[in-house]
């Protein structure tokens, strides 16, 4: 049992599963902090996952795939920004329409370009290489967990650190947070709100692009219909729990990923797979409950 809970396999899987969540959540934090209501991360990721697959398949080079993914993420973000910032649509409506549209679009393109339904596998769909650090070798368990992961796993943690610095240690980050806290005040002090909202949305798109690319070419080398399966929503939940702080959001992502990783191990213990599959979502709700427990003192006020 303990081996399942803290085993090398589980922890290594946690890092691997957390990577797409972390990328999406870190990017989403910027949109969140700039006061952009965006639950379309799911569609950004799914579209990127498809185009990363396509790019990799075209060139047999996963890095080109990642670039394609980023490009797709940016295009999705641009579409979102166009509708929400310039055409005065509601963020939620645009999000929902995009989430449903992305499912249709990717499946359609899958049939059109690859000629298959369901899932796509090909020998040209090469995954990103795993990095091997010989320094870590004598460290036993740490080695097993940290070593030989794919490039993006390590980059995810770099991204968290960098984006935390950008958000809290740079003038850009300060202004961005200012836009989210009080748009009018920010405007009065000469910040171009629209520009900041746009930039933050594009950042979200870039990171969701990487997050989407991780899914097909981060080790599994397969693209499946509706592959994101709610990961974009999990990222949104992580942003909410982390209150838009990349560090805290990434920590929540690790927790959700741990719940997913556990599900692989627990399944072997004879617990029905369907119940195990609910773990990340239940864990999300539990984390939200703990996070919301500080509101309990308001309960007595619920009278009417």
């Amino acid at each position, binding site marked *: 049992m303990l081996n399942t809970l803290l085993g090398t396999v589980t922890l290594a899987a946690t890092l691997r599963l957390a990577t797409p969540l972390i990328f999406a959540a870190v990017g989403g934090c910027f949109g969140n902090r700039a006061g952009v209501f965006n639950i379309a991360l799911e569609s950004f990721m799914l579209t990127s996952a498809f185009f990363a697959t396509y790019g990799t398949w075209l060139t047999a080079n996963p890095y080109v795939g990642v670039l394609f993914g980023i490009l797709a993420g940016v295009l999705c973000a641009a579409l979102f920004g166009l509708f929400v910032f310039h055409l005065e*649509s509601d963020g939620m409506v645009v999000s929902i329409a995009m989430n*449903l549209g992305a499912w249709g679009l990717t499946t359609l393109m899958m049939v059109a370009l690859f000629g298959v339904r369901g899932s796509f596998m090909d020998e040209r769909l090469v995954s990103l290489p795993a990095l091997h650090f010989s320094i870590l070798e004598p460290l036993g368990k740490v080695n097993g967990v940290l070593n030989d992961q794919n490039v993006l796993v390590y980059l995810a943690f770099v991204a968290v650190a960098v984006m935390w610095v950008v958000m809290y240690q740079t003038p850009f980050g300060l202004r961005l947070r200012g836009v989210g806290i009080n748009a009018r005040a920010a405007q009065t002090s000469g910040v171009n709100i629209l520009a900041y909202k746009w930039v933050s949305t594009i950042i979200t798109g870039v990171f969701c692009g990487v997050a989407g690319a991780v899914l097909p070419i981060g080790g599994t080398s397969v693209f499946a219909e509706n592959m994101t399966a709610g990961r974009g929503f999990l990222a949104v939940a992580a942003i909410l729990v982390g209150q838009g702080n990349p560090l805290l959001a990434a920590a929540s992502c690790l927790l959700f990923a741990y719940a997913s990783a556990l599900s692989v191990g627990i399944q072997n213990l004879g617990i029905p797979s369907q119940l195990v599959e609910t773990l990340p979502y239940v864990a999300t709700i539990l984390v939200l409950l703990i996070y919301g427990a500080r509101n309990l003192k308001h309960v007595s006020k619920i009278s009417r």
Partner: protein
Amino acid sequence: MRLKNKSELLLETLKYVLAFTAVAVIGAALISFQGAAPGEAYAAILQGICGSASAIGNTIRWITPCIFTGIAATVAFRSGVMNLGIEGQLYVGAFAATLVGLYAELPGWLLPLACLLAGSLSGLLFALIPAVIKLVFRIDEMITTLMLNYVALWVTEYFTKIVKGASANNNSKAMATPVIQESAELTTLVPRTNASTGIFIALLLVAVVFVIYRFTKVGYEMKQVGENLRFARVGGVRTTRMFISIFLLSGFIAGLCGAVEILGVYGKFTPSFANNIGWDGIMISMIAKNSPVGVALASMLWGALKAGALQMERVTSTNRLTVELIQAMFVLFVTIDYRRLWGKWKDRQPRKRTAGKGKEGGIC
């Protein structure tokens, strides 16, 4: 959606016509991209909507759940309750209805009634979870309902496996409960189609919600809470009680939708059968601007397109998801705030409006 004068009516009509033309053109491009003739595909869609008696039956079959989920969304969103969990509540309701339909021994019309009640009450109970979490822990219902959708999906699949017993394997595509008792099924309207009397329940629901909104004090308060929360509270509306009742009502309707789908169409519960129909409801409600009659009209369009899409896939080489994509684009085009856009265009002041409306405040 009260139309104040003629020019406004004109603007609204123009909006729908424009959006429809735009997606028809994009749709034609998408269809030819897949190597089919757009004209042929559109003809197939039309034929699938009303080409024959069975086509009309299928259209009615698809309109029914659209109305239910559309109303479930309208009830919630009009009052500022962000219930994104219609899909999950629908699954729970559908499963409960199946259970009653399988095992309850009741005479005559009592059995379908019990199924419908079981479905809707389970949907209601499932909606109670995020509502309570919102009230006690102040967690945004949007995120909890999103998560609970997945929980509902997997848990109902798990119970399906239990009902099916030892013979069940883990392949969710092949897994389903046994077929419910015949006396539990709703009467079929058009022979050899899935159009059932569920459509009457749906239309009745539209009428009831319309009357509540238009003529009753409760309905006025429900609208008030969504439009101006502070005013409503000052005016003596019990907002907390209102919030929870609206949430439960929305879940009730979603559960009812699940039950009707089982009793009227499928006859058995198959995991993940609904295919985003709950999300369709939210989009329909957006198109209809949260008006019950609007929902009925938009559902007709939506259901017709769904029925037509299936026919199109049968006749031409076009994937039916094309229509799904077209529908999503239609929503995008229709929900553009043209009037404000027009206003912005007219008086182009240097002062820029704050971009993005952001989330509107919840009601508690």
